[in-house]
């Protein structure tokens, strides 16, 4: 996908992140419909059509946007109360605001070029920094948004709330007790997962689910385009999800979710046959693989696109 140039934002990649997240959270409404994923259209091109209308805008540009289903923005320059008011007015009825952020630590590690220096492999010396270096080698290929600290995330959520926009967040995997408030989840998910471009989604408060908690529609991943970022993979996968990740590692470019499922089944069946075991397809295969892919996405190991990654989502507004 687009190379990241020093100091420049890859708006297209950020918008794709926002769209994939919005689809998984099932929060896009209105002209796009909740379940459609497809090529978005620029707000400058007009609002009619079945695809979500998308606009990119920094803080000072938000006031010039109207009727967008999805407004994509960043916290650089810093957003303020007026920014969120403008964002609220920029979205169409059913629309959402997506604020892309990175964690401070993740941004710091990548800015320092960690992962480029020669390191002992994580297997030889699995200390924290060696693991971080292995992560950075993969994450360096991902889009990077401006960083926001935990306290800044709370500020942003508060500013948004004051303008009638509610932060929505899903459950966080692997934790024993789910934080109750959406902003608590946002902080934990951003900082603990080393987010490089995580979409904070805001919906008009009247549409927000209780407590801002949304349920992830993992199964939608099978309609997405998926690309693996890590080349490490099990030579003989011992499960279907493992086979899916191995297939991604072997693919040179993004693959549709349904195609991935098919290829993963074949790879797994082959590995199982070599081990003297017979496996058959099951209706649970899809959900199983989908869950694994979403987990891998949250860990930064795969990239997800709700729309064809080969097609830019929208032109950036001038200014």
């Amino acid at each position, binding site marked *: 996908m687009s190379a990241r140039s020093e100091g420049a934002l890859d708006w297209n990649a950020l918008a794709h992140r926002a769209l994939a997240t919005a689809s998984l959270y099932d929060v896009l409404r209105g002209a796009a419909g909740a379940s459609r994923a497809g090529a978005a259209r620029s707000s400058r091109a007009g609002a009619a059509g079945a695809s979500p209308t998308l606009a990119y805008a920094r803080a000072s540009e938000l006031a010039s946007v109207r009727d967008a289903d999805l407004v994509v923005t960043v916290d650089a320059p810093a957003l303020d109360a007026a920014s969120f008011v403008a964002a609220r007015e920029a979205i169409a009825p059913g629309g959402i605001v997506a604020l892309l952020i990175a*964690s*401070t*630590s*993740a941004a*710091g*590690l990548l800015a*320092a*070029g*960690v992962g480029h*220096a*020669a*390191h002992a492999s994580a297997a030889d010396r*699995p*200390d*924290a*920094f*060696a*693991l*971080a*270096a*292995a*992560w950075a080698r*993969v*994450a360096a290929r991902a889009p990077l948004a401006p960083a926001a*600290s*935990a*306290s800044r995330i*709370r500020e942003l959520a508060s500013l948004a709330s004051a303008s009638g926009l509610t932060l929505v967040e899903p459950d966080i995997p*692997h*934790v*024993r007790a789910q934080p109750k408030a959406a902003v608590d989840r946002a*902080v*934990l998910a951003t*900082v*603990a*997962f*080393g987010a490089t471009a995580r979409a904070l989604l805001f919906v008009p408060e009247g549409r927000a689910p209780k407590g801002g908690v949304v349920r992830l529609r993992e199964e939608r991943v099978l309609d997405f385009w998926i690309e693996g970022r*890590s080349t490490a993979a099990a030579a003989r996968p011992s499960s279907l999800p493992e086979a899916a990740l191995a297939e991604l590692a072997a693919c040179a470019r993004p693959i549709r979710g349904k195609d991935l499922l098919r290829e993963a089944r074949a790879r797994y069946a082959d590995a199982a046959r070599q081990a003297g075991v017979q496996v058959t397809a099951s209706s649970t295969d899809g959900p199983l693989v989908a869950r694994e892919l979403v987990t891998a996405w949250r*860990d*930064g*190991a795969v990239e997800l696109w709700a729309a064809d990654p080969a097609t830019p989502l929208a032109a950036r507004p001038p200014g």
Partner: protein
Amino acid sequence: MFAYDDVPYDTEANAETHPSTIATLARLSGLRPAAPRTARVLEIGCGNGENLIAAATYLPRARFVGFDLAASAIAAGVAAATASGTSNVELFAADVSDVRAAGTKERAPGGFDYVVAHGMYSWVPRDVRADLLAVMRDALGPGGVGFVSVNALPGWELRRALRELARDATRDLEDPAARVAEALRIIEELARAGEGASGFRGALAAAAREYVAHVARATPPEAPFARYVFHDLLADVNEPFSVAGLGEDLARAGLRIVCEAPLFPSRAGAFDGLAADLARTGAPFLQVLVQRDDGELAAAPDASAAAELDLWADLTPAPGGGFRTTTGALVRPVGETGLARATRHAPGFVAVRDLADDDDARRELARQLFAAACEGVLTLVTERPGCATTPRERPCVAAHVRVRAGAAVERGAPSGVVTNALHRSFRVPWSELAVVLAMDGARTVPEIAAEATRRAAEAPSSLAGPLTGASTRDVQRFVDAVVDRFTRHLFLVEEDAT
């Protein structure tokens, strides 16, 4: 209320900041630092002064000055120095900006030979950092060497994530102990949830485990809670620095980096620079020696310079062969290597030049011993400390050590920390502290045993251990072993300084 008055910081002696350690590194870097025995030492942010008092008790002709904003810590330090009669230490409460304004020339007209700012720079606001370096520059005499420690990038980024989450989770808590407890709970949960994970989650989990272990080492058993966490991860200010960033700050203040401290094993081989080394190792903490920018330019630490130094081989013969270091590592010198030759003098001091017959052999030996010193197997010194290294009829442990031992014994602590002439600290059990307390230069070893036994009879048996319930012979054997160990580990002074 200043945080360090509200929650005392558990300051202990730090071997890396001792003038002998600094002098050795400076010599290896081609400088000619002042002799530690008669040095003038300033510590900025000295806390309770323990780092200075522990050094001063073995260097009676050196002069030590320290200041800190925490008045309660300074008061505790003054009391400790008074109790042990350590008169060559001056401690005062002050703001670093006031010290900058007043200057340091009154206290040391010719300048200080060593200026230490350990655990300060990353934890104070920007304006205080500028004052700190200005004081250091002003205080350092020609040829003086400074010591600065900071949280280091890029390795500290993982701790930044821990700090963000810990501070976020405790933002509504007031009580320091409660904040620390919740912070540690969050960190331990991160370690658990990310166990075995790949990606950033796995790295953060590993960092969480490392930090929990680090906190355990830094927290005395008798501390009411991990105060280290309160003053580190939860501190209002905690800024990391890249080598370049620190270098820029130093340059603005008229200072520059001499070398990092201590020497790490990587220094024994090809070294591609401090910044590259940190990027490769990810060390989250950096200690450096600094000098005035108008001083003689330092070179990179050179192994061959070890030929001019003495070495201290604190190695104990291990039952199955080889030697144990003070950290418990086992070394097995082979043949006629430098280490093998050094161990023939263990434990003891020997001049490196005396271990080889000609210049070529001496250079090769120096290289081997430098590598061993980088591994922490032995210690290189510019001068031997003023302590007794052989048994005495009436052994005398340094006064401050006896005061510390006495304090721990009186309060019934199961153990206490004592520091030797090389500024190495050891945590020893109550029973050994009771013996140390009696080693005052006035008693023979049997009399030491009698005094320790008397004290043990008044203490719970859980503390007194080998001093109670055993035969007289067993007690004497125990006391003999303690006296021997404290002699060998450089705790004895030539005579009682009090």
